[in-house]
């Protein structure tokens, strides 16, 4: 049942402002840390991992990023979702070369991969649904995003 708690209205943010990728990842990691989802080591682990294994995806409609790191930095699982006021440049997952102008971030705190893989699969299946990504971006409050995500994930 741990799965059910991963999506939470208090972990959905709209129009977050950040200077750059590092600033954005720091802000999001701080939120998860302050709410008790991750250990203090999570932030540095996220920043380091993003440099070596970038997570930007050239999805249709809205470009997304999926920062995550090793389970050892996680206390309880969570999905932190945020739309961005201005696009932030991430490197593309896979090639690590191309720049992606990311407009929506899904930060994952993964605790038990085997257990959470089903939910992650559903989350990633949203990335190939252009209309769902566009509706998420058009939402004016967290409730709207929560309802759409809930409908897709559960």
């Amino acid at each position: 049942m741990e799965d059910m708690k991963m999506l939470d209205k208090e972990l959905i943010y709209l129009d977050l402002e950040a200077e750059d990728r590092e600033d954005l990842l720091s802000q999001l990691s701080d939120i998860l840390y302050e709410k008790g989802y991750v250990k203090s080591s999570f932030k540095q682990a996220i920043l380091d991992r993003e440099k070596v294994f970038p997570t930007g995806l050239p999805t249709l409609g809205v470009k997304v990023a999926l920062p995550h790191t090793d389970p050892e930095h996680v206390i309880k699982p969570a999905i932190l979702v945020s739309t961005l006021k201005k696009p932030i440049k991430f490197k593309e997952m896979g090639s690590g070369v191309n720049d992606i102008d990311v407009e929506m971030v899904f930060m994952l705190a993964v605790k038990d991969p085997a257990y959470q893989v089903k939910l992650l699969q559903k989350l990633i299946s949203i990335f190939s649904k252009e209309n769902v990504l566009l509706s998420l971006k058009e939402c004016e409050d967290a409730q709207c995003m929560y309802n759409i995500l809930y409908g897709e994930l559960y």
Partner: protein
Amino acid sequence: MKTIIVACGSGVATSQTVASKVDKLCKERKIPAKVMAVDIKSLEQNIRIADVYISIAPSYKDYGIPTISGIPFLTGVGMEETMDQLEEILKK
């Protein structure tokens, strides 16, 4: 039976997701293949038994087996074409 190996940085999220997607698509196309998800650290020891490597992490070396990008399985863009490519490789 051919073996497909998928690797990502930590082996916790993206590689498992891509692996299960590829597994499902292989079954739909009736391609007999085993799909494995590993983290990049254990890739070297596992790649010897694999026939194809699906990459979702920057690759710094040539593993000597056919390599295809796993990104289409995450974005849905060009996924069918990538499956065609995979099927072609596995037929050989």
